[in-house]
């Protein structure tokens, strides 16, 4: 089992990354329970990939480090994605990563469990999870975990955050276990499944 954490935090240390780490720490053992060994966790810091993400749009193809990150995301059994709130939504860097991913590999997230999380300076932005992140990942055909986790600055010293983390991590783990027993969506490779040319010609022939 493998969990990939995508963090769009910008500062070091970052509360976005901190929230991501807490979610991963809770989800990794839950995903493999009752086995003693927790799921592998790989962290992708978008800050480190910011320039390659921008170049994907100017070049048309991802650089090497970004291509590796895309492979990791595509190969994950579950994703945890965490963004700071910028201007009442996910950050541009966060969106750009998933834009670049979907340009490169449109089905990368199809059928994949995704736990969404966000951080902000105030609790007033908490609906960003349901109004911005959930539709984005629904569009990308991911299976979005019912509980998202939003952490405002004051939450780090308040009660309740731990419980939300535990609940969301448990839901992610359950989906990972449930979906991994179902058959994965076949990845389409147009190079290996060429439509024979006669079929294309025949499809264009006038009927009757």
């Amino acid at each position, binding site marked *: 089992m493998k969990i990939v954490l995508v963090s769009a935090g910008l500062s070091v240390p970052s509360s976005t990354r901190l929230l991501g780490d807490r979610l991963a720490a809770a989800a990794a053992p839950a995903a493999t329970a009752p086995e003693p060994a927790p799921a592998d966790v790989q962290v992708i810091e978008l800050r480190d990939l910011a320039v390659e993400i921008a170049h994907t749009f100017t070049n048309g193809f991802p*650089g090497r480090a970004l291509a590796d990150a895309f492979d990791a995301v595509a190969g994950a059994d579950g994703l945890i994605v965490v963004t700071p709130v910028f201007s009442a939504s996910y950050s541009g860097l966060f969106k750009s990563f998933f834009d670049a991913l979907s340009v490169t590999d449109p089905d990368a997230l199809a059928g994949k469990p995704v736990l969404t999380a966000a951080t902000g300076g105030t609790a007033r932005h908490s609906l960003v999870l349901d109004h911005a992140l959930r539709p984005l990942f629904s569009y990308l055909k991911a299976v979005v975990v019912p509980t998202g986790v939003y952490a405002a600055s004051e939450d780090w010293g308040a009660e309740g955050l731990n419980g939300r983390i535990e609940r969301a991590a448990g839901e992610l783990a359950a989906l990972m276990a449930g979906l991994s027993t179902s058959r994965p969506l076949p990845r389409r490779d147009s190079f290996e499944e060429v439509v024979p040319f006669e079929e294309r010609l025949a499809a*264009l022939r006038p009927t009757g």
Partner: protein
Amino acid sequence: MQFGIFSVGDVTPDPTTGRTPTERERIKAMVAIALKAEEVGLDVFATGEHHNPPFVPSSPTTMLGYIAARTERLVLSTSTTLITTNDPVKIAEDFAMLQHLADGRVDLMMGRGNTGPVYPWFGQDVRQGINLAVENYALLHRLWREDVVDWEGKFRTPLQGFTSTPRPLDGVPPFVWHGSIRSPEIAEQAAYYGDGFFHNNIFWPADHTKRMVELYRARYAHYGHGTPEQAIVGLGGQVFMRKNSQDAVREFRPYFDVAPVYGHGPSLEEFTEQTPLTVGSPQQVIEKTLAFREYAGDYQRQLFLMDHAGLPLKTVLEQLDLLGEEVVPVLREEFAKGRPAGVPDAPSHSSLLATAKEKEGARA
């Protein structure tokens, strides 16, 4: 093996002077570049086809006909001819006419264009891009091979008892390449007909080129045209050279940094590392070009993009001198080494005519 150049025909300001050539200057420069290509011993000149600024070559056979009259050996080609939005009847006629005028020094490359709006400009539906390429080419293929054609399809009005005129020179249609960067359907189309496949091989990592060429070669053999190694492959490439590689980098960087397509993006160093672009000495160009064979196999045609991004004509002509004098002679020699005997040359009018006569003789 053939070597040549292909031009996009962009009108781009020279970033070092801020000067933009007029359309007339750019069109005449393309002609001068084509004539220079013959002078320095290259084999092929290919022009793009575009119907939007900042590009000038909207009417390829007009330009190629003019170049044909002023050259002796050069093969005139396209990169690409829009099989999607041009009427295949007009393509059949234009290129047959050019064949006669140029004494057979003509082939062409089919493509689907680089901009979506070109479809509605010519009354077509962009969502039908692949289907238009399939149907239009199927008709074109017949118009050049059958004197009288009855035809009905999805995208143009039916033809009854139609004869495309003039007939191809000596009854031999121009050789056709199909160009595509990432559509397996087009590699499949080229393989089905036993036509050539061209990958522009620039702006993208070599891995893209490799997958497309491998698919084309496998399918070429599947359709019984020969072994995978005998399939007809062309590649693009993009180079800028000076005797001293540091001079090449210094001179090309301002053009690279603001160039259409990749400008304002990665550094010159990153781009040369990740794509087939070479900026350096003639020796570096030779080494990088020879390495194309490692992922594309022994191939038939190498075209270089030399005249874009606002490079002044004088510089481009100097580049062609270097290409013709220092690079291509070495490439010819080196590519010939270890080339298996069964790998054919790119088809030409005379080779296609000889094959046609052979077949006729065998039938008689």
